[in-house]
């Protein structure tokens, strides 16, 4: 076997590879990011910054507005810890059965700068499992 070093070939390949990966990461980080926020954090930001966000909160008891036999719901989302901080959410789509006052939900979408409401494209209720809720103390 010829005693030549194969290192340069590997370095060239690795550079190409990392370049491609870097480009993918760069474009992905540019377009596919969203703020992950609690309601209170969202309220502290400018509406125009929130064109893409994922909000975590609790569905308020009052103000659930839902057509009887059609899709969609609008409701008030409370901050998990500070119930005084609220935002109005508009969701178009099939509302899951698990949606009800008091449950923790995650909504994805963006704030409509004109009305200040959060237009949600997805509405997820938190997995109702009770894998382990204790030991938080």
């Amino acid at each position, binding site marked *: *076997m010829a005693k030549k*070093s*194969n290192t340069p*070939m*590997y370095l060239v*390949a*690795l550079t190409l*590879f990392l370049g491609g*990966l870097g480009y*993918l*990461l760069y*474009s*992905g*980080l540019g*377009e*596919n*990011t*969203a*703020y*992950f*926020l609690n309601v209170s*954090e969202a309220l502290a*930001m400018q509406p125009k910054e929130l064109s893409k966000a*994922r909000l*975590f909160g609790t569905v308020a008891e009052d103000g659930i507005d839902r057509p*009887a*036999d*059609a*899709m969609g719901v609008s409701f008030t989302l409370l901050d998990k810890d500070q119930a005084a901080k609220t935002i109005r959410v508009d969701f178009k*789509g*099939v*509302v*899951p*059965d*698990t949606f009800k006052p008091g449950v923790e939900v*995650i909504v*994805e979408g963006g704030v409509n700068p004109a009305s200040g409401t959060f237009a949600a494209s997805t509405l*997820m209720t*938190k*997995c*109702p*499992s*009770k*894998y*382990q*809720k*204790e*030991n*938080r103390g």
Partner: protein
Amino acid sequence: MHVTAYFALLAAMIICLAGAAAALFALWRNDYGRLAMIEKGHLLASACVVLSSVILTVALWKRDFSFVYVAEYTDTLLPLFYALTAFWAGQAGSLLFWMLTLALFGVFFAVSPAYRSLSAPTRHAYWLFFLVVEAFFLLLLTGPSNPFLEAVPPVPEGRGLNPLLRNPGMIFHPPLLFMGYAGFAIPACLALAGWLTGERASFAAAARNTAILSWIFLTAGIILGGWWSYMELGWGGYWAWDPVENASLIPWLVSTAFIHTAIVERRTKALAKTNVALAVVTFVTCILGTYLVRSGVVESLHAFGEGGVGGPLLLFMLFTLVVLAATLLAGAPFFADRVKPLSGLMSVPGFLVILAWLMLALSAVVFLGTLWPVISKLWSANPVGLDAGFYNRVCLPLFALVTALVAFCPLMSWSEGVRDKAGLGLTVGAFVGGGAILYGLGIHLPVALFAGAASIAAMATVAYVFVRQRHARSRAGALGAYSVHLGLALVTLGVAFSGPYQLNQEAVLTPGKTMEIGGFKLTFKDLEFEENKAVAISRAVIDVTRDGKPVGVLAPERRIYTGFEQPFAEVSTIPSLGDEVYATLVSATEKKAASLKISVNPLINWIWIGGTLMCLAPFASLRRLRRKGE
């Protein structure tokens, strides 16, 4: 019984620590006379763990609600089968299951020819590392995550098993993952032991079967998890890039890299150090998986919640990495003159190294993506997360490249260049021709097109190799490997098409109304109700036709189980190897208005077919360790 079980775990931990101390002492004094005692100690500790596991199983069987764990996860209505599987429904039980598997892997490995092929110092070093790992898990089980807490006062009825877990996919998904995680401890300990003592034979040979077996369990666990998510969660997909899913994918990616670089070492003696690092990192990522799930470090859809084990797991991972670095330094002098250089890039080893890069890059991307909400806090006041689009954009091209490597690698030579020119022609032809046909069929997305063409080429290569090369059929190792790659090609095909070409539609229908999706016409017939002691069911009956011909009937359900307020969706599908129609009943009203989520998933069943092949084929590759003529 609680006390007996608890003390058995405590005794096991003390025995493991004593055994580790004895092994360390032997290594320090160069006196290897007490190996039999350490081996017997491990057997005894394992027996203690088995005893505790039996006590928990019996308690689950008898629904002994004086055990907090039993009361938390079962009730008297639960069928026996599901009650027993509640063993791993919660954190404490699943850690005990992990420990049990770890102990059994250890027992079986200690009687294997692979273990007997090791020198006495290496055996001692192996026990040192392995017993420390066991002691760590026993520490968790006797401290923050004790499955044998007694309910005071005793409760009359348990809370019942989460209905989501009452599904065959979910029964076997978690234990398979834990078996995979546990198994990878052995290659890691062997790697450290062999490097520390300068063992002549590479650990990669001794660790081969355990690594493959663990990989099988891990793969099967992931595939079953995807299938469960698709059939039970009812959101229309099988992979959401949720932190919990990513947690199991990272060890799979790193272990796949390790298994391939280990092949290079066994054949050419190159990459010895790389393999030690990869074996240990695989083990660390197995713990990382549990850490991500249990520590609450990232918000997930799955509310596993904090269980007090996050801190210890993090410390143990850091400790293991420090041990790895120290071992690599300490053992380096033994290997200075033994390392063989790697052959050129255009060779089988070269391709396997590129594969390892791809796998490690994928695992790094998934790791960073999962932790992005934590990392982004460094510069952003509010955490920034990544959606599924990020992973699809970054990871799918890399997976497509992996499939392309699988297509071309078997045609390369081990030293340099192409081994089989005719085969290369055929593979290139299949790649170009397959790509052209897919383009003609309307597949125009570049990544899906490339992945589809690569998987057709990979299938053509495997078929060619089976026909032309006798060793591919007759040698068990090769037969298993080529079949796994065939499975991978099928999975790639399924993923490339079911993701980007999935059709989704949501609608609220009343009886008699119809909707259309992807050439299918769906007629909502009626909403049926059914009730018994354990569950209340509402079921939508939907007739499906295509071009006027009946295709089948969909009957998605909503179920409300006794003891659980939340309703659960039972998905309904019309199974097909082409376009599969999938329906979820999202909600239903008294007036028989059903909210439905319908999707058409092209080629999705090839994922399960290819995935099954990927799990079964490696069994053919397991073999007895060959003794080298020494």
